[in-house]
């Protein structure tokens, strides 16, 4: 069913994206796009446009509340909504962007929706099945460790009210064995598709902190998306200047070397990695390489092209190359690649001039659905 509101909603979205009514753009309140919280929770603010009126500043005003605490204690609690009241919506303009906590899965869904990313076609021929337990229901028997406290007491309260033994003046609820309720689970079997991302980054002298930050943000989103597509996702990291080595995630984003750039060193290491650990018929393989494109020599570039053609491209789902623009400009490598593999869908290249280019580049990489 098409809703009348759709029209207003798409107009609002267009304003938020700055497509129409540019002068309203400045009232749009946005927060950070990424903010890890806890293990895998992220808070994304919902864009909001506050219509400016003659009104008081909130901080000056203060207010009244209800609850425990001594003078000087911080006021707890957020703006809260009760039950929807009479004609409620629309007349209490919010003071803050409403922040919604979402899981990474939901975030990936939003990303997919926002960039219109296609679902990925699974190339792995893996027949591995994994079993997973999910708590889905309640039953009357079970181990004490799975006892559902609230349900148990609710049953007890029901029984006591029904049998007239409940005394409101002395509201003590005592569960009997019959009242006990336990969580129950179902085991689900699902096929596992395995995928590995191999990140390679150029850490030669010309890659500055800003360039690394761009790579970091971009790889966060790529991880998020691929994680939503594959259950078992592995990530490996390679850094290189004139030589390449494997590192952990922490080192990957924080290393700064000086020295020249031999891209082939990284590609060789990547190739060896695939040989050693990731048989093609079981794994979906995604190498991502980020560099400023300033390779040492044409000879080395030719080695890279050869490696790609002979052994890398035939084995991967997609080989992605992102060229980050550095203070020293943008190099030649991306042109060499596109010239050599213009018609090959397995190679995707993207230029990332600055932070604003990240979204477009993610779309370049993931928009093919490979």
């Amino acid at each position: 069913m098409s809703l009348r509101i759709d029209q207003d909603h798409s107009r609002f979205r267009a304003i938020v994206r700055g497509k129409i009514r540019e002068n309203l753009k400045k009232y749009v309140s946005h927060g950070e796009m990424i903010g890890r919280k806890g293990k895998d929770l992220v808070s994304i603010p919902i864009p909001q446009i506050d219509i400016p009126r003659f009104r008081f500043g909130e901080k000056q005003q203060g207010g009244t509340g209800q609850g425990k605490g001594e003078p000087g204690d911080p006021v707890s609690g957020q703006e809260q909504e009760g039950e929807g009241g009479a004609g409620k919506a629309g007349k209490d303009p919010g003071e803050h962007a409403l922040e919604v906590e979402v899981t990474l899965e939901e975030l990936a869904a939003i990303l997919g929706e926002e960039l219109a990313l296609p679902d990925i076609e699974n190339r792995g021929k893996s027949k591995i099945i994994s079993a997973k337990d999910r708590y889905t229901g309640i039953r009357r028997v079970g181990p004490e460790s799975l006892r559902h406290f609230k349900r148990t007491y609710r049953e007890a309260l029901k029984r006591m009210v029904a049998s007239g033994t409940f005394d409101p003046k002395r509201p003590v609820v005592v569960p009997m064995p019959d009242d006990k309720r336990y969580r129950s689970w179902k085991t689900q079997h699902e096929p596992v598709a395995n995928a590995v991302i191999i990140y390679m980054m150029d850490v030669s002298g010309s890659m500055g902190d800003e360039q690394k930050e761009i790579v970091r943000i971009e790889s966060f989103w790529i991880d998020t998306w691929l994680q939503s597509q594959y259950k078992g996702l592995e990530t490996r990291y390679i850094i290189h200047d004139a030589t390449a080595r494997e590192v952990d995630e922490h080192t990957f984003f924080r290393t700064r070397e000086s020295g020249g750039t031999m891209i082939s060193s990284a590609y060789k290491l990547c190739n060896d990695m695939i040989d050693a650990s990731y048989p093609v018929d079981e794994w979906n393989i995604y190498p991502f390489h980020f560099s400023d494109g300033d390779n040492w020599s044409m000879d080395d570039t030719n080695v890279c092209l050869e490696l790609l053609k002979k052994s890398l491209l035939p084995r991967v789902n997609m080989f992605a190359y992102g060229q980050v623009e550095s203070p020293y400009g943008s190099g030649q490598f991306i042109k060499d690649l596109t010239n050599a593999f213009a018609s090959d869908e397995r190679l995707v290249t993207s230029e990332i001039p600055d932070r604003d280019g990240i979204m477009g580049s993610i779309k370049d990489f993931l928009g093919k659905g490979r």
Partner: protein
Amino acid sequence: MSQYALKTLLPSYLARQQERIEGIARDFGLDPFPTIFEILAYDQMTEIAAYGGFPTRYPHWRYGMEYEQLSKSHEYGLSKIYEMVINNTPAYAYLLEGNSLVDQKLVMAHVYAHVDFFKNNFAFRATDLDNTGHLTDPMARPDPFEPNRRWIDKMANHGARIRRHMERYGVTAIEEFIDTCLSLDNLVDPWRPFTGTPTPRNEDDDETAVEVPRLKSKDYMESFINPASYLEEQRKKIEDAHNKKKTFPEEPVRDVLSFLLQHAPLDRWEHDVLEVIRDEAYYFIPQMQTKIMNEGWATYWHSKMMTEKILDASEIIDYADNASGVTATSGKQLNPYKLGVELYRNIQERWDKGQFGKDWDDCDDLEVKRHWDMRLGLGRDKIFEVRKIYNDVTFIDEFLTPEFAIEQKLFAFSWSERNGRFEINTREFQAVKDKLLSQLTNAGNPFIYVEDANHDNRSELMLRHRHEGADLRPDYAREALRALFRVWKRPVVIATIVDDRPVYLRYDGKEHKSEDAPKAEVESEEKED
């Protein structure tokens, strides 16, 4: 039945419940309008909630924004709209499809109390319409009271009017002007509907010639006792005083929107759009003025009706679970459901036991007060009287007692610059009450009047903000001035106080200026203090 209403009839098992609950409500003495319930899927519910309860409004992006917030917060399980009810004749209420029967019954009981409140609380009379769909004089209350409040139709008509303008002048042009009007839509006078139409000024007053009173004298002494220069001086003084009175408007006008409608140089479509915004702003005022009372009343009655009449034993636990959620409190914001219902119950108890009047007030003995019970049984009558003639401000002002504030753990908080957070300020009764009242007064909006439509004799529009302790938010004030300029089409000024200094904020269509108020004014302000 409105042609704009959705065709989503109640299933028969709910229709039976509705009939039963309406009967129970009337037995308890509630007097609601006829009410039509519709049952909606959550996306329809969210859509209508985004439109402020009306199925058809004029198109505007902010409804899309509301929709996004409501639907996201629903999808992530943060909140759920249980019910909506519209102050309309007949009243419309929406139930959420898939709620349990206990919840639906609770909502119906809740709704009937809301509709009773709409019909009987005096503030809502300001939403009465005449046959042509215009606001009518709420003071002329006919008997029997069968008002016309066909706001669903009226809002739909507004939608049609705005759409017509959009077709003619383009969506963006109209939308921009709507935004402009919305920036000003809190500049209204909540009591305007009750003050009647102002009597036209008697023009004859102006005709009287200016006569300088003179002392009696013989002819030959005349030029000494009443010298010509003195007479001239006096005449000038009187004339000046006379001219000074002739500012326009004569008295400051609080209903800025209607002043603009009457006097700003608006195109016909601009006039039409502004009128729509103003009418709708006035529709929502009573709901803002009675938020605590209205929700408290509905909560009081749903709890009474549910526990005494409607529920059977198997449902009571689910009901209690839900009801406790509705009245849950959280630090930063008072829950109007909780505060309202507790205050009604408190009033009922006090009037049942006779805990009011001179004897009660004069009594200093806490022990006597604790056991004070004159068995008057006036409580029920009292709360019905309260629901009729009070609004949130008078409700809190008159019935909030120190004992109640302690029992409900009320506190006032303020922003701590040092710690960068909101902190509890005090639990002292008078301070908490003052803070609460100032929050409720004028729905938390500043008091702003049109003072002079010919400021500096250059037909600039001058507004005055009656400063009561809190400054205006400066960036918003600048944007609001810009909107005002768009409507008035001449430079605009607002006199206010920033950091204890009287200033004029001015916008002339190109740039914003903040200049000190003229000296004379500063002195008179100080004298008033």
